């Protein structure tokens, strides 16, 4: 279609194009500048409460599972298929804070693995929680306060270990996750009942020393690494596994050495640093309009 009225468009377009590009550039720059803002990582402390799980010792008796349910007054797990009560959960869920699963290594060797909250030094769940329902308390425990929880489930999205669980089939749900039996003076119930010493409790410093001692005593038996020492910035629950079943086969992901909240918090706080960018944008738009309004009023009066 031939349209003579488009004569006026090039000039107008040049302006919008240039300006549109500028928006994109500014947006990009804001994000890029943000990522440059370093954030202090929250480091693990030797005095924090933790667990050490040695997968080479676990025989899968699940005494820890039962002890956890008792100590935390959790209802028995109901099997989804027939609704029957076996109290044999397949994974962490809305009534299970601690579970034993079977892991298979690349060569077919098997090992039992215990799953519960890792109690990260710099937890992603607490970083994303809107009102701090998930938060660090004394002894490095990641605690949950249902009074501050709106059930948004961002913690489930953010946790690299998929630990927090939600109650999907009730009108009044809560987030369920291990809080290291913070209500018990004696500490974690799971570690008290283990017949093999596969899970032990203590301070992070003690547990790390114990893990290193075991590694040194039988180097050929283990993967030469204590998982959690620095993974994801460090966790208060530490793992050892046999040389035949690597950590990722246990369901422990390959994490960067820095805490996960580092990137998101740096970018977010970078963009909003001192509120400069938002205030500048708001002021610019207001000023432009007020100036226009003055001109407009003049023009309109002439028209009328």
């Amino acid at each position, binding site marked *: 279609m031939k349209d003579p009225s488009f004569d006026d468009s090039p000039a107008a377009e040049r302006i919008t194009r240039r300006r549109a590009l500028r928006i*994109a550039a500014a947006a990009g720059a804001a994000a890029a500048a943000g990522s440059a803002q370093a954030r202090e990582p929250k480091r693990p402390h030797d005095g924090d409460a933790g667990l050490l799980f040695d997968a080479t010792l676990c025989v899968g008796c699940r005494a820890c599972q039962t002890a956890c349910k008792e100590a935390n007054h959790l209802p028995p797990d109901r099997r989804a298929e027939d609704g029957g009560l076996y109290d044999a959960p397949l994974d962490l869920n809305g009534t299970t804070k601690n579970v034993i699963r079977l892991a298979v290594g690349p060569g077919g060797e098997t090992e039992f693995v215990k799953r519960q909250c890792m109690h990260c030094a710099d937890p992603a769940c607490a*970083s994303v929680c809107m009102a701090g329902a998930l938060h660090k308390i004394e002894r490095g425990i990641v605690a949950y306060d249902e009074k501050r929880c709106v059930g948004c489930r*961002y913690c489930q999205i953010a946790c690299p270990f998929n630990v927090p669980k939600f109650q999907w089939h009730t009108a009044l749900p809560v987030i369920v996750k291990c809080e290291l039996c913070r209500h018990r003076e004696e500490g974690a119930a799971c570690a008290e009942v283990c017949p093999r010493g596969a899970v032990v409790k203590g301070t992070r410093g003690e547990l790390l020393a114990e893990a290193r001692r075991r590694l040194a005593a039988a180097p050929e038996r283990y993967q030469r690494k204590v998982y959690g020492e620095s993974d994801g910035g460090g966790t208060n629950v530490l793992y050892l596994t046999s040389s035949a079943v690597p950590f990722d086969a246990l369901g422990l992901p390959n994490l960067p050495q820095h805490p996960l909240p580092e990137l998101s918090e740096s970018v977010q706080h970078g963009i909003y640093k001192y509120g400069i960018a938002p205030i500048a*944008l708001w002021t610019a738009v207001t000023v432009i309009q007020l100036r226009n309004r003055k001109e407009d009023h003049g023009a309109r009066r002439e028209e009328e």
Partner: protein
Amino acid sequence: MGSHPRERPLGGKVLTSAMKVLLGLAALWAVMVAIRLLFGLGAMSAQNDGYAWGIWKPLNVVTFTGIAAGAYAVGLVTYLFNRGEYHPLVRSSVMAGAMGYTLAGISVLVDLGRWWNLWVVFWPPAWNLNSVLLEVAGCVLAYTLVLWVEVGPAVLERLAEARSRVVSRLARRLLPELRRRMPFVVATALLLPSMHQSSLGGLFMITETKTHPLWHTSLLSALFLVSCVTMGFGAVVVIENLASLRWGKAIDQKLLARLNAVPAWLALGFVALRLGDLAWRGRLGLVAAGGTHALLFLVEMALFALPGVLLLSARWRANRGNLFGAGLLLLAGGTLYRFDTYLVAYQPSPGWHYFPYVREMLFSLCLAGMGVAAYALFVKLFPILSGVGERGAKAAAPAAPMRIAAGR
């Protein structure tokens, strides 16, 4: 055409048969909400502990507000870049924006497991300022209110003509007060989406180990911001055309065509930003590696690049059908990018699967239907659309076919 046409109420019958269908959907929706409230989220949604966010987030919240970003896109051009000629598009897009954000807010409320605790989000001592979601929540709520304030003048203009003397006097008194404060409202209306639309992408910055590297980048915020604006422009074109098809609204094709030079550059900028970012991170090989993720990535790129390139040509976009098509592509590209980021590229751990229940999808459909119904109601009662006749749709109807012919 001298000064731009004034907005007028569309008028006409409110309770059309289409409206009855939409009201039926609203009733169905209410039943579904009741089921969710009584039996928990699991009764309505296939969301699970692996995929804790299902389609209600990327669709009802992020896509609906992406469509609603027409208000933001038109606002940026009209107010920040000071191009007053786009004023006739403002009220319509603000109305659509108010609808989109209201639906998103309602959807979030239904999706919140412990909704009765929502007050903590508005209780400053409880705030965790590290939470991207806190920023999104506060900002989206504030912006929804601001959008309704922006709809205010249209409502008051109509009420000023009301038969009741009390109402009309009140409206006449409020109108100039509101108008005087509009610049501050508009500035807030441009600030808030800049913040939360980017943060809707920023939410996935923390899932470094769960989000596929083709999508996980520190530029997530910038990419979501740019793509919400391209979606907004697409939405304006699509809604204009639908209003024309349904109600015979006259379309100022020249104006729309000129406006859509902007998303051309933004869409191409989006493609450049993503490819450049992948190259910078040395991850371009993932695209060549094939597989579902690479394929979806390429489809996304095509859905941005195609309208981007085509819209560059002033002649091409002058055609009404072409521009409508480009608008749909812009919406599709932004929507796919949102679904991919929230669901497809998100991989919690092996063994988790999610596919929405039919009732879960129906929930979204009903919500969208309610939005359309409310939009129709508002444009019929209040002066929101420009290019419609003084006595309602009938007066404007003859003008529409001519415009279409001229457009082709």
